[in-house]
């Protein structure tokens, strides 16, 4: 007769959620989650609201760029090159006679697209790595964190430059994906480290021990109990990270290693127009102003989020 293996927890995960049928004093009112409390605090912060307004405006501009831009951002008009700001061209035209206002408006798209998607990509790679490193420790931890340290040994701009030289910048969607990938790689260690640190303290908490005692499987513990509890710093870092990513994208494009023409990009426009700075200085003003306002918006928003979600970080 086969001996039945001794089993520890007899409850499966599905049963745990429904099992306790003891008379438990029901809370009079469902208490607010820390996240909701944080968002409530966020509403009271003036600077954060300014940030939110800027970000919402920018997203609107990016979505409706085709409607908002008075002209095509890439149609050149050889008869009106280097036109000074006028009613027809509120921000003037560049060396190919392209309308600067339309270019700045369309530039919002690539800037936000690369900024947000690179951070999300970094998040989806960095967070699991950080969780695994922190939760399991030992050799896995050492291996993951050594690789992360190696990436961090390079300053982000330098590594982004090296990566883009390797990837060779190209135009179009593939080119945009390359830029996004390069910035994401550079940013992965930030999230891995952040999450690892949080997980290290969370995994010692009683509720994780309770889960273990109930025989809950590791992935369930990680995603259901550990991850939600390190969400606040992740959200803050993500928002501020978008600001950094947008600056990195602009920097790469400014060096000619990021977004390539014909896609309108603020960094590239600055690079292209700096040669004409002596006679046509105004051309260099607006793409830079756009970068500045965008980054400022995300920084204000992220700063307000930090104050609201995690008072300890203040």
């Amino acid at each position, binding site marked *: 007769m086969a001996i039945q293996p001794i089993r520890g927890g007899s409850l499966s995960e599905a049963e745990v959620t429904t099992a306790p049928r003891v008379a438990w004093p029901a809370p009079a009112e469902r208490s607010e989650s820390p996240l909701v409390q944080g968002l409530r605090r966020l509403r009271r912060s003036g600077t954060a609201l300014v940030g939110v307004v800027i970000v919402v405006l920018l997203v609107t501009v990016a979505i409706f760029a085709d409607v908002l831009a008075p002209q095509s951002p890439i149609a050149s008009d050889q008869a009106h090159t280097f036109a000074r700001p006028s009613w027809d061209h509120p921000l003037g035209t560049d060396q190919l006679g392209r309308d600067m206002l339309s270019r700045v408006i369309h530039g919002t798209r690539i800037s936000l697209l690369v900024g947000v998607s690179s951070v999300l990509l970094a998040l989806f790679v960095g967070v699991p790595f950080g969780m695994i490193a922190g939760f399991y420790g030992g050799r896995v931890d050492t291996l993951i964190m050594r690789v992360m340290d*190696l990436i961090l040994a390079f300053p982000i701009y330098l590594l982004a430059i090296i990566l883009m030289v390797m990837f060779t910048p190209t135009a179009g969607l593939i080119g945009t994906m390359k830029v996004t990938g390069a910035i994401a790689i550079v940013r992965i260690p930030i999230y891995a480290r952040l999450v690892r640190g949080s997980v290290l303290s969370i995994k010692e908490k009683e509720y994780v021990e309770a889960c273990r005692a109930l025989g809950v499987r590791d992935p369930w513990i990680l995603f259901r109990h550990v991850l939600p509890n390190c969400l606040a710093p992740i959200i803050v870092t993500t928002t501020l990270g978008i600001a950094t990513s947008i600056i990195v994208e602009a*920097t790469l494009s*400014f*060096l000619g*290693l990021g977004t390539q023409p014909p896609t309108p990009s603020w960094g590239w426009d600055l690079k292209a127009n700096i040669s004409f700075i002596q006679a046509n200085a105004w051309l260099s003003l607006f793409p830079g102003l756009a970068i500045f306002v965008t980054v*400022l918006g995300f920084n204000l928003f992220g700063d307000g989020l930090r104050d609201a979600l995690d008072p300890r970080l203040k």
Partner: protein
Amino acid sequence: MINYVLRRVLVAVPMLLGAMSIVFFAMRVLPGDPCVAMMGDQATTEALADCTKNLGLNRPLAVQYVDYLWRSVQFDFGNSLRQGYPVSEYISRMFPHTLVLVLAAAVVAALVGVPIGIFSALNRRNPLIDYPLRIFALLGLSMPVFWLGILLLIVFSLRLDLFPLIGGGDLDGAIAMIRSGEVFTQPRDFLAAVADVLHHLALPALALGFTLAATVSRLSRSAMLEVISQDYIRTARAKGHHERAVVYKHALRNMMVPLLTIIGLFVAIALTGTVLTETVFTRPGLGKMLVDAIGARDYPLAQGAITVFTVIIITVNLVVDMLYAVVDPRITYR
């Protein structure tokens, strides 16, 4: 202590090795044959084969790798593909320009950032002071250094005509005078060269310094906050010390440890900042050299510049780590 220093050096070595390996392999996977880049599309097959052999590119990758590491240790990065001169020569000529820029920017950043950070921390309960200062820091953080540079150029070079538009000044001349001893025989010429350098340096240093000041002010604000909430500060206050004595005698000295961390971070940020600053101001330097080398597909030159950047940053962090032990005897090391 010695044990700790050794341990840190031992950790830094694989780090350096890893970073250099990344640079090496990054340069190898680049599309385009360096020989074609050097000799043009019209080169004959024999000439190309000859060139490949001369550059040692026909050897196995592993051999090339070890050779690269060994020669890098000896500060030999090969020759520039475009001009043919040794890369190390470019680096040693460009390095002083970058060093001067980083130092000047550091002075600006420290003079602006540290007082703002401390002032803001000490007055954190007064929103009329703390609030505008934090906004200033955010503005600085959001300002791309190349755009600030362009703005400064437009206002101070083009409109007011106070500073030169391009160039790095007669730094080579000044260095040559120091080497030859002409500093003492012709002090007037030397001072003229220094003045020229400073004249060219002012705008780039301001641009880079101001963007860095934002980071510095934030870091020193949080460093000060951390120190000021310690028990010994309360003790000093309880003893009836004047507030100024508390800040300068007790708090500031204990800020040394966080300050060191700032310096380590600072060098990394500042060095990469020079890439952009030098490009905008058309200043000679390692950063501009790197950008130009990438644009011209001059891989040995780019490889040399990146290696130097990485080595400097890792070394600075190593030194900073060691200085912790000197500054704060309480720090214990396993």
